[in-house]
Every structure is written in C-alpha cells, then in structure tokens.
C-alpha cells in the first residue's frame, strides 16, 4: 500500500448526499478478478451517456477536475454495498482523499486499506471547501496527515480526527495483515481457550 503523508491537489466539488457504491461503480463492472483498471468505470452512470460519450456537466469531465485527487461531498458517502471495487476505482482514477460530513462504515474502512484517506468534517466546513474547490486549479487544497490538518487555499488550517492505528498504518503504508500476524500467539491461545469453553462449536467442513 502506498503511504499517505501530505497531498496538495485539485479537489472536485460533489455536493450530493448518499453517493452510493452503485453510483461509484455499478455491479456490472464487478465481474473482474483483479483490483486494477477500474478507474475508467468510476462514477459511470454520472460520467457517461449510454453511447459511451462523456456527460459534459459532470465535474470529473471538466478541467481541471479530470486530475482531481480529492473529492468533497455531502452526507453518507459510500453507502450501500461492501464492494471494495469502489475504493479501487477511486484510487485507479487518482483519488487519494475524500472529505465529507460522514461516510458509510464499510466504505470508510475499505478506503484506509487502499491508502485513501477519508476525512470527516462538519457540513458547513465541507460547504466552505466545496466553494473553494469550485475555484478550480488555482485553489488547491492541502491535506497533511501527520499534523491532521486540511489547509484551505487561503492558508486557513482545519483540524480533523483520525484513529491512531489507522494514521500510523496510512503514514507508513503498512499492511494490516502483517501487523495482525505479529499477534499470532494471542490468536493461538484465544483459539485454544475457545475449544475448551465452546466444545460444541461445529466445523463447516462436512
């Protein structure tokens, strides 16, 4: 996983609530056995007409937002399915950070596993950042994970919260599995205890 430290980038304003995972990547694009190459289908129903041509009024079809690395949206971003194809598609397009008042839980988790930083900020702050983002390429936003601040184009700094464990993993690009496996002895002894206390627990292997 690519570490996330600081990012200064164009932000795409997407002032919509409930941007669900079927909008981010519809089910028909899930028939892949790979993680890569999904960026071309990102936001497919919003981005493309039925004949495959671009919808000119969708923000990611406009300059400078074609190169956006940040999205700023409204409530409940990423609701719906557990599909990790959603963050894979965002990442493949180039998005590294999403700022919204709140996120659906599974999407929020999935983002971290892929080096995407989801930031929760109050709605009025998001609205302010959306206004900044509308100014385009001359109004880049900076996200500094170490210091936990979003820096507006005018220099104003906005603090955000994040769990320490997630911050550490993201800053260092650490993979969760490797970290958990260091606790292998605890897992072994937990399993041994459970075999004693719940001897009735059946196997799934018939």
């Amino acid at each position, binding site marked *: 996983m690519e570490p996330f430290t600081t990012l200064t980038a164009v932000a795409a304003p997407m*002032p*919509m*609530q*409930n941007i*669900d995972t*079927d*909008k981010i990547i*519809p*089910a*028909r694009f*899930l*028939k*892949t*056995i*790979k*993680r890569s190459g999904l960026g071309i289908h990102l936001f497919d*129903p919003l981005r493309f007409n*039925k004949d495959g041509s671009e919808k000119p009024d969708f923000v990611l079809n406009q300059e400078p937002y074609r190169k956006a690395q940040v999205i700023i949206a*409204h*409530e*409940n971003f990423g*609701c*719906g*399915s*557990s*599909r*990790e194809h959603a*963050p894979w598609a965002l990442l493949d397009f180039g998005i590294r950070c999403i700022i919204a008042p*709140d996120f*659906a*839980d*599974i999407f929020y*988790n*999935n983002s971290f*596993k892929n080096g995407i930083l989801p930031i929760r900020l109050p709605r009025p702050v998001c609205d302010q950042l959306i206004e900044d983002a509308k100014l385009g390429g001359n109004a880049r936003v900076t996200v500094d994970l170490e210091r936990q601040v979003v820096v507006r184009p005018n220099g104003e700094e906005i603090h955000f919260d994040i*769990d*320490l*464990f*997630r911050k550490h993993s993201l800053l260092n690009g650490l993979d*969760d*599995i490797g*970290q*958990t*496996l260091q*606790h*292998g002895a*605890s*897992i072994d002894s*937990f*399993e041994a205890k*459970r075999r004693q206390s*719940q*001897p*009735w*627990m*059946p*196997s*799934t*292997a*018939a």
Partner: protein
Amino acid sequence: MSATRPRTLFDKIWDSHVVEQLPDGTCILYIDRHLVHEVTSPQAFEGLRMSGRRLRRPDCTIAVADHNIPTTDRRLGIKEEDSRIQVETLEKNVVEFGVPYIPIMDVRQGIVHIIGPELGISLPGTTIVCGDSHTSTHGALGALAFGIGTSEVEHVMATQTLLQRPAKNMKIEVTGTLGFGCSAKDIVLAIIGKITTAGGTGHVIEYTGDTIRALDMAGRFTISNMSIEAGARAGLIAPDQTTFDYVRGREFAPKGEAFEQAVAYWKTLPSDQGAHFDTVVTLTTAEIAPMITWGTTPGAVIPVTGVVPNPADEPDEAKRSQMQRMLEYMALQPGQNLQDVPVDVVFIGSCTNGRIEDIRAAAAVARGRKVADGVQALVVPGSGLVKQQAEQEGLDRILLEAGFEWREPCCSMCLGMNPDKLTPGQRCASTSNRNFEGRQGPNGRTHLLSPSMAAAAAVTGRLTDVRQLG
C-alpha cells in the same frame, strides 16, 4: 471490563471475541464464521497467494457462488464470459486453499445469506463475516454479523480475525400487533423511513419489542438484512425459543448433547436489564402500513396509501435537490398517488425476501389470479432447498398457473449481475433491498415492497394496496 456492568447482546458477543486490544482502542476481533462468494473473494485469494500465506481456518469457512449464476437451466453453464471466469476462479481457489464449497448443482446452493442460517452454519452468539454488506441478515439469530471489504476478506482468511473498533449500541423497539397485509418488510422499511439511511451509522442495532418477538425467523432475517440500509453495520435480535427451534436439526448445527450445551450458552446472551444503549428509537405498528419506496434510496419510502412528497416542502437545499433528482429518475410527480402507477416487471426473491415464507405469501396472492398482460413476474427462490420445499408444497404450480416465472436460486435481479436485468426505463416492483439508480439494470426504476405487495402488483399490473385484493 467489569462483569457486573449490565451489557447489551452486542457487548456480550463483542467482549467474548476480543483477542487483544491495541493501545488506541482498536481490537483484534475473532471471527467464527467466514462466508465467501465469487464476487468479492478473487482478489483476496490472489493476495494470499502473492504473499505465500495460507488460509488459517478452512473449517470455519464456507464458499458458494450466488451473484453471477443464471436462473435458467444450470446444466447449460454460464454464458457470459466474465461471470463464468469469476465462478471458475472461485472453484479453483477453494480447491487450492481447501475451503468447503457448495457446488452450483448442489441442492443446497443458494444466496449466501439464505444458506448460512438454513444449513446451520450461522449460529447465535457467533461472529459472522462475508464480503457482502447484507451479512447483517445473520444477526437475526443473535449473532454479530457484518459485511466487510475484500482486504478484510483476505485479513480473515490469513488470521481468522479482523481489526475493529466497537460500535455504538442502538435499540429499536417495535410494539403492537401488525395490521392485516403487513409484514416484516413493512416494519423495516418503516424503520428506515423514520431513522433515514444514515440513522444507524456507527451503530449496531438491536431490534426488540413484542412485534419483533412475535415474528418467525424469516421475518427476523428480513429485518436484520436491511439494517445496512439504515446505515448500521449489523442488526441483532436476541435469541429465544423461536431461534433455538429454527437452529435445531440443521445440517451443520450442533447435535444432541452439544446442542443443549449451546442453547444453555445462547440463553445467557440477551441484553441485561439496564444495559446502556447510546440511541433508542421506538415505533408502534400504528405507524406501519404496507410500505413502498418512491425514490432511489430505501429511506424514500411511504405507506401505499400516502402520496409522493413534494421537494418544495423540504427546507434543506441538499435534500431538496436530491428529492428532485430522485423524482426525475423515477418519473414521478410530487403529490402523486403511487397506487395505479403501472409496472413492467415484478421481482420476488433476494436475501431479503427469498425464503419459503416469502414465496408462500406471494403464492397466497397469486392463487386463482393471473399476472397482468405485459408484466414479467419472476420468482427466484433464495436457495435450492427453498425451491425444493416450495415445489413439495405445490407453490410452483400456483405461481406458474398464474403466469409467474419459476427460476433457479441466486441473487438474480436484485443487482443484475446475471442476465436478469431491467432494461432502461422499465419499472419494477421488487422485494429486494436496494432501489439505487441502476441497481437492477442501467436506468431501471425500482420500488421496494413486500412479497405480497409485489404479487399484488403482478396481478393488477400496477402498484397496488394488497389489502384491497382481500
């Protein structure tokens, strides 16, 4: 943690599965049951392979293909190449990693959230995960069951644990006797309408109250299933006699003395008197009529007797513009009565409403009636065992005589990954769980409702109050 503090059902399951707590409060949570399907697992198996890791507990894992499977004759194979590759990849992976697998031609094959409970793999008091958001379904047994992403699927495969932080507790209490024509689907749609699609975010819901207690397991699964649509990761119902009777005798469930030991433990799980809930919501059955969604989020729901809301009455601008967009997409007008809106397709099935009880409810409405001209009505049982039982009860005959199509079990038109899809502009009365734009096929329009309401729409050719059919 003091053992004397009153705890919720969720707290108890959580506490008994914490392997270790890390300094920032993140927990390594032990997972008892891992359900695997073809769409969200290939990249996880690939990850294991690349890092030279093995699957830690194949004996706690079970795999089945359900999303991509055709609902027509299985012996002909899967025509669409990308779907076939996904299923073949799963079949190769289960062999390589030694995962128990239920083959497509096995009578026990079906939607993962139907077959887990049906086979006794999902049990009370356990932690159950699957790379699928509707894993919340299994919570109806009094299990902590939630959906995970593919990276987490790989994490469970490698470690049999997940890194998690505890959720907040929410209690939703439903009281009163359900009215004529109402079902569990109407309860859960009314709940989502009340608390909104983000109302449960960060919470695990426990459903309580005499209305919930009176439900059979099928109804309880329907409610837990849609917890995710209320933003919650999981939705639990305390195990009781209904639960134990359901689990007893199922293929993988504990047997004999072991079953009695298990029940003794399961009886300790219900929330203690005075346990703390961060959020409490109450609902009475007086607020519940046959419900139907008008928009493209499950929270955009009204009683069938109501009218489509007017965006002009919504003070919040973001909400107002979303409502406008939804009305445009659904081709509906503010103030419109949903009854009498014609439908093109009716879909009865999915992990929400694909159980035998749901098919009985649909057949009861279909009996002696005919599907309206020009309407395609699909009934897709949730599993091979459900299909078999329905056929033993003669429900397939009733439905076929009425002009419904009787299909092979899988997810089907719930998300349109197999050939069952809406064509652009088609309107569908669906017993599934998501009415998102394009969910059942690009530019398709979905109205969520109960199985009997769906059957009523099929025979009248329009959205209908099932109570008027008598």
